[in-house]
């Protein structure tokens, strides 16, 4: 208790206090007076009396000092004094301080911000119960390593497996919701009854689906997302039991999902409906449209699960050869299914920031070196005045820590801000599908990461100057330094270390520049990839016809004819086409084909299937290679025909003319047989960076769907046409729902692959630019310092008759050596780094010579400028002054 009281008093006593100091002086003085009085009484002379008193006391100042130390806490006081001194030193040198702090803050900011994204998407566990036991379950075919399940296959897998505690499915399902203000498109998902139990998510209001509610004849039920509850029902507690009409069917609302629930593959889904198989797809074994989510039993690994499912798939293959031939199984951790594609990009960006941090740190460290070099004299003086080695080191460490603390605080604060900024730069559509980014920010893990960097920086920053002074040299060589004032050979150590730092910085800059260059070239190639169509001046509008009003194929065919006919008459419209799906979206929606009149090869002959109108190819200006286009008259009443792309022709008719050949389904059912009437040049159906698949195009009127896209070529600005299109369609039938309208160019530009590549290019280019600037600044620093160190030498050389040209030569040669070594190391590392990110490159090799050459040239030029400036200063040295300056 008393100890504590004493410590608190001492803690308070650490703060300077004049009154206490005064009192201490008075007490000591009183003591001396009393003693002197006694001594005088004993008969001493006044002079001697005072001397004896002081002697007996043991010195006035040292007594006071003992008391002061007892009064406060000496360690703390020293620390405070060091910090004060450091701040004063740093304030005296604002240029150095700002640069060092900014460098650190910059490196910290970039690394922490990107780590925030990495954490939110790759590290933070998914918001489900025991998320690492959850797996995505897929079928596997040659074209799709992770393909959708078919519903009958799912039922068999669910029944036969021995590895899952539960296995459930979900299915993408846009739906039309009837609201007071008319029909609206909304995002919905159909899930099997145990889906939320498998995830371990419990509704906040109402109840979960009951077992059996996903069966065919069960009453239609739906769970609302929290957002849907808030926006559509104002958070009304009585929403449970109400009815909402989705796709013309009244669904009973049975509950509301928690606010923090998200399921990234299906966000922002508002309606979660019970699966209830229906239509001609769900019950067909060959129609694959659902995704599986399973919870592994305790102790079961993914490998066992895969083995089990594969054996079940083999069994089904035997049982149903027509539909299940070649259908394997695939299992992957759910987290990988959700954020898998982001992983390589995020890891690349994180490595990029790591490199940037390295350069920034290197730069800051070399600044610190220069500074400590220029303080050699100060150190010598302080050491001569009795500062111990430990005391000097502490002082330097304190200074380093003050810098690091300032840099890191600034860095972390700006990282928080940068994360928010980056988040705002992500288009709303993409952000909605990445719900795990919502709570991006400075959480515990991110702060620990930042702390780790700070610690590293602290070690480097406090050790650098200490190392520089060479611990043994403090003391022993001080007298030389005092006389020498940091001239001559003492700079060599630093020059070597500084040069090495600069080489590392330059090499790192090369790696980042090369990465940015390769990614940029990839993006350029990607955006200029042959599409097989002309994307300019094309407006597109996705449309959904209500199934209730257009139940029959003829009705849909008639509808599209009216839509095409109506839009063709609009001003500025050149031609109109209808397609089941917009090109440059994704490979998928496939069909298995078999060629009539040929023995079956028993393989999955999987091709993209697209249903298109007569005007589709002419509108997109795809090139017809052989045969003819469809006519508008080709509907169900006419012979069944098909147009194929070049890839299909090459793959299945390598040495024949495909025109006139007939293809059908795997069983060659008579009603599936179609005659090939044309071959078109490959239109890119999948994403920009994916391969061209064989594709068949069926006449829309022979194979219509409720969801389709209207494609319009126009002579005017295509965006302005979209409202007109919407209006025209609503004039035909106000119940038709129009979804997103966009220009073809926009659709391509904003497609996920283009977007991913573009963001990667922007971010890495940003890092590379910063790296270039920092690296060049570092070089400038080293060369300038070297020049300042060699002023006397240069003076002597010039006095002895050296020409200015040879001085340039001297300095530029030194800089040139560093640059060349840096670039050479950098290029080697760049090729290595680029081969690590091969998956992110498109159409360029990791050793793409033009890119690497350009990088070397850019860096070389920048480096030349950076070293020319100090070289000119060196050549401008006046020999007389340089020698007199001694």
């Amino acid at each position, binding site marked *: 208790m*008393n*100890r504590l009281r004493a410590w608190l008093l*001492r803690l308070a006593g650490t703060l300077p206090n004049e009154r206490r100091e005064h009192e201490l002086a008075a007490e000591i003085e009183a*003591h001396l007076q*009393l*003693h002197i009085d006694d001594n005088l009484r004993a008969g001493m002379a006044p002079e001697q009396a005072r001397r004896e008193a002081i002697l007996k006391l043991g010195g006035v100042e040292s007594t006071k000092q003992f008391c002061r130390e007892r*009064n406060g806490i000496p360690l703390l006081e020293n620390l405070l004094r060091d910090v004060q001194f450091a701040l004063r030193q740093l304030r005296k040198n604002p240029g150095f301080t700002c640069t060092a702090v900014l460098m650190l803050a910059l490196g910290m900011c970039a690394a922490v911000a990107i780590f925030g994204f990495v954490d939110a998407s790759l590290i933070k566990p998914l918001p489900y119960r025991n998320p690492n036991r959850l797996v995505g379950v897929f079928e596997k075919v040659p074209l799709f390593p992770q393909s959708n399940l078919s519903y009958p296959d799912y039922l068999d897998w669910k029944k036969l497996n021995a590895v899952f505690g539960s296995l459930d499915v979900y299915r993408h399902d846009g739906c039309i919701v009837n609201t007071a203000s008319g029909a609206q498109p909304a995002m919905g998902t159909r899930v099997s009854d145990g889906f939320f139990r498998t995830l371990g998510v419990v509704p906040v209001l109402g109840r979960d689906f009951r077992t059996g509610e996903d069966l065919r004849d069960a009453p239609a039920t739906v769970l609302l997302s929290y957002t849907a509850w808030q926006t559509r029902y104002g958070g009304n507690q009585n929403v449970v039991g109400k009815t909402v009409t989705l796709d013309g069917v009244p669904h009973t609302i049975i509950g509301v999902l928690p606010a923090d629930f998200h399921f990234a593959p299906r966000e922002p889904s508002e309606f979660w409906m019970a699966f209830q198989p229906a239509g001609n797809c769900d019950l067909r074994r060959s129609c694959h449209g659902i995704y599986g989510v399973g919870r592994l039993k305790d102790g079961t690994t993914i490998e066992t699960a895969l083995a089990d499912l594969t054996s079940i798939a083999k069994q089904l293959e035997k049982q149903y050869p027509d539909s299940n031939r070649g259908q394997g199984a695939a299992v992957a951790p759910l987290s990988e299914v959700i954020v898998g594609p982001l992983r390589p990009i995020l890891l690349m960006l994180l490595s990029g920031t790591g490199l940037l941090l390295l350069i920034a740190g290197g730069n800051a460290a070399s600044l610190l070196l220069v500074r400590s070099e220029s303080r050699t004299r100060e150190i010598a003086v302080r050491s001569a005045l009795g500062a111990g080695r430990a005391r000097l080191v502490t002082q330097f460490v304190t200074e380093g820590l003050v810098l690091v603390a300032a840099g890191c605080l600034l860095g972390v604060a700006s990282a928080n801000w940068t994360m928010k900024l980056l988040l705002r730069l992500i288009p709303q559509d993409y952000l909605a599908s990445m719900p795990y980014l919502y709570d991006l920010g400075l959480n515990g893990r991110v702060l620990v990461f930042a702390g780790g960097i700070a610690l590293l920086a602290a070690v480097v920053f406090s050790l650098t100057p200490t190392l520089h002074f060479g611990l043994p040299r403090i003391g022993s060589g001080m007298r030389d330094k005092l006389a020498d004032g940091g001239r001559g050979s003492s700079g060599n150590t630093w020059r070597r270390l500084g040069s090495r730092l600069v080489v590392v910085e330059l090499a790192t800059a090369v790696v980042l520049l090369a990465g940015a260059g390769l990614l940029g070239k990839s993006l350029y190639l990607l955006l200029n990839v042959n599409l097989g169509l002309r994307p300019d001046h094309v407006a597109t509008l996705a449309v959904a016809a209500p199934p209730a009003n257009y139940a029959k194929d003829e009705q849909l065919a008639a509808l599209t004819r009216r839509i095409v006919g109506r839009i063709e008459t609009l001003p500025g419209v050149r031609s109109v086409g209808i397609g089941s799906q917009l090109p440059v979206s994704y490979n998928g929606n496939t069909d298995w084909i078999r060629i009539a009149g040929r023995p079956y090869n028993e393989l999955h002959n999987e091709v993209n299937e697209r249903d298109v109108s007569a005007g589709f190819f002419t509108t997109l200006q795809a090139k017809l290679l052989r045969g003819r286009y469809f006519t508008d008259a080709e509907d169900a009443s006419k012979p069944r025909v098909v147009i194929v792309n070049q890839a299909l022709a090459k793959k299945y008719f390598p040495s024949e003319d495909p025109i006139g050949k007939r293809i059908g389904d795997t069983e060659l059912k008579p009603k599936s047989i179609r005659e090939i009437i044309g071959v078109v040049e490959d239109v890119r159906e999948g994403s920009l960076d994916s391969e061209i698949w064989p594709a068949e195009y069926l006449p829309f009127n022979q194979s219509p769907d409720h969801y389709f896209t209207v494609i319009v070529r126009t002579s005017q600005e295509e965006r302005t046409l979209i409202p007109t299109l919407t209006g025209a369609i609503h004039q035909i039938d106000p119940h038709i729902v129009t979804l997103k309208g966009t220009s073809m160019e926009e659709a391509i530009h904003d497609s996920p692959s283009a977007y991913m590549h573009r963001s990667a290019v922007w971010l890495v280019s940003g890092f590379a630019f910063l790296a270039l600037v920092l690296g060049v600044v570092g070089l400038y620093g080293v060369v300038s310092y070297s020049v300042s160190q060699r002023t006397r030498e240069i003076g002597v050389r010039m006095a002895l008759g050296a020409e200015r040209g040879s001085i340039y030569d001297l300095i530029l040669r030194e800089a040139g050596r560093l640059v060349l070594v840096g670039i050479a190391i950098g290029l080697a590392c760049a090729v290595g780094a680029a081969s690590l990110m091969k998956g992110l490159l498109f159409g360029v090799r990791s050793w793409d010579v033009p890119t690497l050459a350009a990088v070397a040239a850019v860096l070389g030029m920048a480096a030349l400028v950076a070293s020319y400036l100090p070289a000119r200063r060196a050549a401008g040295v006046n020999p007389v002054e340089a020698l007199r300056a001694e």
Partner: protein
Amino acid sequence: MGDKADVWQGTLALMVLKTIEALGPLHGYGIARRIEQISGDALSLNYGTLYPALLKLEQEGAIASEWGVSDNNRKAKFYRLTRAGHKLLATETRNWEQTTAILARFLSPSEDLA
């Protein structure tokens, strides 16, 4: 002065407390002189070391101080025992007596130890 003993750390506090208890409120110089006298000039006491010890006791609440006037009319800081100081003195005295008693038994030649 070669044969004078140094003051042990810790024992100085006890001497200070005892001195103040014996003489009542007293200034630093008085305490120092008194300790020297009692020890029969056998202790070599740097008066300066007394002040940190006084400060420590004051911080711990065993003594309190106030300015007053000495016998020969000098202004000086006087220290007095607090209630906690009295208690501390009692326990410290007991502790010391115990320690010395134990040590004495060790140091005096005795049959029991053989």
